[in-house]
């Protein structure tokens, strides 16, 4: 019996699900993808509660794998739209252009904002306790560089205030994502969870998501990205 892989997470697992449906992986280890069940405004989304997921995951053998994608979406909330008090930040990999209007926020402070928020989330540590096998947490896809693309995709929404002009500069968005991923990676280490970076081939030289992996929205990657992630997960066996 090969290694069983159970993937559980939020909307970012959709690209993986589509990739699985798209291709024939029958000769590979079985992969099951489930989405966190959430009740919101009388509607239910997702198909597996955290409790049921933990029960399911606890039955896996030590050579099986659990891959989660739960944290790591804060960069879009904090950084997608330009704040009323504009700010920017550096990262180790990329510098920024001086912008007299924007306040330089220390990268370490931005990282700490995410850490403080993520530390409050007890889901990962409870999953770690319930699961005996190897546990991985996926990075969320890096941001899309093209502000025009994002603005086009979001123009359909009512009262839309996400326009090319109101979006944060791409490099600022990228550096916010980097700060969040670094915070998540460090916390994963504390929780005993292996952090999985996005596949290198999906990222541009500057660090953005490559255009061929864009989903038709502001924040998600597509099924081609899902393929690459699944290949990377299989490589972890």
């Amino acid at each position: 019996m090969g290694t069983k892989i159970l993937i559980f997470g939020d909307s970012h697992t959709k690209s993986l699900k589509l990739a699985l449906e798209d291709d024939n992986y029958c000769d590979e280890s079985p992969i099951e993808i489930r989405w966190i069940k959430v009740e919101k405004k009388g509607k239910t989304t997702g198909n597996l509660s955290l409790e049921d997921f933990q029960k399911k995951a606890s039955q896996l053998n030590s050579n099986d794998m659990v891959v989660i994608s739960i944290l790591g979406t804060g960069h879009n909330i904090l950084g997608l739209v330009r704040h009323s008090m504009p700010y920017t930040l550096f990262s180790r990999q990329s510098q920024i252009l001086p912008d007299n209007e924007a306040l330089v926020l220390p990268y370490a402070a931005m990282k700490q904002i995410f850490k403080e928020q993520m530390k409050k989330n007890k889901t990962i540590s409870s999953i770690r306790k319930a699961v005996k096998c190897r546990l991985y947490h996926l990075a969320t896809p890096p941001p899309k560089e093209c502000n025009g693309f994002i603005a086009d995709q979001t123009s359909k929404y009512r009262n839309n205030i996400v326009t090319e002009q109101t979006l944060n500069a791409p490099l600022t968005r990228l550096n916010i994502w980097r700060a969040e991923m670094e915070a998540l990676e460090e916390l994963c280490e504390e929780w005993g969870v292996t952090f999985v970076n996005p596949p290198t081939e999906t990222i541009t030289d500057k660090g953005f998501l490559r255009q061929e992996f864009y989903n038709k929205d502001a924040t998600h990657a597509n099924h081609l990205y899902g393929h690459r992630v699944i290949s990377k997960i299989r490589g972890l066996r």
Partner: protein
Amino acid sequence: MSHPYKKLPPKAFWRKSISSLQTEQVDPVGCFGLQIEKETKVATAGSCFAQHIARHLQSSGFNYYVAEEAHPLLPAAVQKEFNYGTFSARYGNLYTSRQLLQLFKRAFSMFKPCEQVWLHSDGSFRDPFRPNIQPGGFISEEELYFEQQQHLRFVKEMFMNLDVFVFTLGLTECWKDKRDGAVFPLCPGVEGGEFDEAKFEFYNQTVTDVIDDLNEFNILLLDVNPNAKIILTVSPVPLMATAEQETHVLCATTYSKSVLRVAADTVSKKNSNIHYFPSYEIITGNYNRGSYYADDLRNVVEEGVSHVMRLFLKHATTLDLNHHEICSKGEVEIDIEDGAIKAARELVEVECDEELLDR
């Protein structure tokens, strides 16, 4: 028989103003010639003890002037950790009068030190003039440079706009760059950088040095802000260590505090806009039998700080103490939900829901 002592008020006599009073009744403040009003913009700087003054001013409803405010995204805990609001700008502890003078000159482009960056053993980059300003330091030289320039712009703004500047003198001992005289809050090599005897030297300021620094600072400040007032205090916190060869830390502390106390007195008598407030005496005075110090005999306990602040508010402000309770914890959680964040949150939620509906 008449003599000059006959006409003196009770405060001039030890028995009447010290030994016959309860600890909390002792009030060594004489005539204090400055009144801070609710609207007065009060900025603070100095050694660790100045942080207490800043905290109390903030929690007492005064216009505690913070020129370098944290971005509203930063929650209160992160602001504190990154030293936003600890003082009026993010300069960290300014232990010596020389540091204060050089900070002013750097902010107004009158001095550019040779030493610009310290590399830490953890790979981070430290600002030599505030090496502990944030946990983990800066991620690159560029980030440090840009953030430092931004910081100095806020410092400039602060000096130009403040009404009252409260400065707590902490130390006379410092580490100096032999090339240009720049002084650092920490010895190079302790929190980044490398100690190089050819470049750096220990220096213990004399009373003349401190007086000259404070006078020069006052002239420069009045030049950009003619109505600025200064309140000087001396930190009662003893030296943690002395670098003065073959000197006991207790003797070094006495030297340091004596110099600072004499200098504060000298400049406040010479300049009508400078006032000395005796927080040093309130804490170190033997009338309290050492009760204002913690077990390490170094840190000041909250009771001592409250005594200082009660007298500060009584003599230096227009605050009605009968209708005011000093609150030592003045942290307020800020609302980070900016319109941009709300919009982004809604967008992300909609997109995530759409992903689900599509499945």
